[in-house]
């Protein structure tokens, strides 16, 4: 194999990689914010902590508006209630131009792993496309699929599955 074209990953500390991936983005963001500000000067410290506080508030607002939409089994189609929620999300995104967002696509456990990765990507993209149509700059929105890897509700019943078939908007 010719390794010249293949980027070799060096030793990189994976600070809070897990937190940003999970639903607990609020904790993860503030934790890494305070950790990175520890060695900075006091004025920068203040700014950073203020920024972290603002971010936390924004995340809280996003959750209050509704950070997730749900999907039918094996579907990436947004229903009318999802669109109403995304309309509210898009108003929030427009009002917070300094923030970027990640849409996480998820599936329930009743599918195969690789197919669900693709389906999660479709779900996240459906949300992203809808927000872009509402006038949100596409450069502000990233998508990521977790397939069936990160259920929101642990359980093997129709209630849990319906809550796990979701796309969640979080602050990047």
């Amino acid at each position, binding site marked *: 194999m010719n390794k010249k074209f293949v980027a070799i990953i060096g030793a990189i500390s994976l600070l809070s*990689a*897990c937190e940003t991936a999970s639903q607990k983005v609020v904790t993860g963001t503030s934790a890494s914010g305070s950790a990175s500000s520890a060695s900075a000067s006091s004025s920068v410290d203040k700014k950073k902590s203020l920024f972290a506080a603002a971010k936390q508030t924004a995340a809280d607002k996003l959750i209050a508006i509704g950070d997730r939409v749900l999907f039918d089994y094996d579907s990436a189609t947004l229903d009318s209630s999802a669109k109403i929620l995304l309309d509210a999300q898009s108003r929030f995104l427009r009002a917070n131009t300094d923030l970027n967002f990640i849409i996480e696509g998820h599936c329930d456990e009743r599918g195969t792993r690789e197919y669900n990765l693709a389906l999660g990507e479709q779900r996240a993209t459906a949300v992203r496309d809808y927000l872009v149509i509402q006038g949100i700059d596409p450069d502000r929105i990233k998508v990521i699929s977790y397939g069936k890897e990160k259920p929101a509700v642990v359980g093997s019943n129709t209630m849990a599955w319906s809550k796990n078939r979701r796309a969640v908007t979080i602050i990047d």
Partner: protein
Amino acid sequence: MNIILKLPVFKMIILMISLLSTQAFSEDLRIKINSGQVEPLPIAIANFTGEEGGSSKIGMQISTVVSNNLVGSGQFKAIESAAFIAPPTNPSVRPNFTDWTPLGIKALITGSVKNINDQQIEVEFRLWDVIAETDLIGLRLSVNSEAWRRVAHIISDEIFERLSGDSGYFDTRIVYVAESGPQNNRIKRLAIMDQDGENHQFLTDGSFLVLTPRFSPTSQEITYLAYFKNEPRVYIFNLETGQQELLGSFPGMTFAPRFSPSGEKIVMSLAEKGVTDIYTMDLNNQEVKRLTNSPSIDTSPSFSPDGKKIIFNSDRGGTQQLYIMDSNGRNVKRISFGKGRYATPVWAPKGELIAFTKILKNKFYIGVMSPDGSGERLLAQGYLVEGPTWAPNGRVLMYFKQEAPIDDGKSTTVNLFKIDVTGFRETRIVTPSDGSDPAWSPLLPN
């Protein structure tokens, strides 16, 4: 990276021993396999002797591993060593066959272990046809004493091949995803072990999510999906250097990777803008080719052993079904037409079958069918069974099974299982923690 392990590589010298006779194994003794359940062939495996003629520690361990392998294949029945009469003291000594025939033993395995120096050992074995009263095969192996398990697996493969007429699968490894932690925050680590669960080692530290590892044809590399820096992409892990490398640079998520039979290409899916298609990447010149171009989900590609075809699953017809295409993406043809959804197809090493996951009425199955879609047989079933992988001789499949949930799903286990392609003898592979996404290596290079 803050991981990783280099697997030790031991040089191995293997010599064929000239035999007393070159006669074929008695025809009535040859086990016939592809006919469902067979009566296991009674064999005796003497403890391999040491320097003083008695059993040495390594000799006994080798005998035990050989016995576990052969009996575990379901094709052999080992006669208890307590029943041995006058065990041979040296593999080159012709046994007194009349001692063994009354026990119903058809084949006898003898062996010895010698220390060459502090590190090196020389292991010798013979396989004897008790009925025809002749030797069938003999090998002498010189190796680092730490590699005695591999010696036992190589000997097992030689015996299996000689008695079954088919290649063995014991000198192989399993790479899989070791799981721990709560269901909504699973820690997943790449782990590797011998086919029998020994020599278990972790390859990644759990700081990032890993899924779907698969071996290269040389067994020296593993391709898999890693959420490294929270960007899901296909990586290649080199077992000799212990490094993981990002494969190419793609605008979206790359996943579902597998090596081509030559090892020169990776076939995988790229998901971008809500569309998942199948691509190949040439590892020599980094050339990327798009093989499918449909608005549907095309994923889980797997090459045929001759490299000419690719099987994959697609929902282009409404639900997940299996499709075959030429390796350049042409001549796409649907092959699965049964009830339910079909997924994760994997071509058998000899090409005659496709293994798959099937979902029907909320139940999961592991099954096989011919590449033309005929002859579907379901082998294993469970609350969730998924991701079949073939033993290199195509006789055994491994997969993972999530047990039916207890306490409303809050407590469940995920484990590796194997089953004969005949559908018999489903067996759990014991791992230190939960496990999923197994991949069986080819026979290891000597």
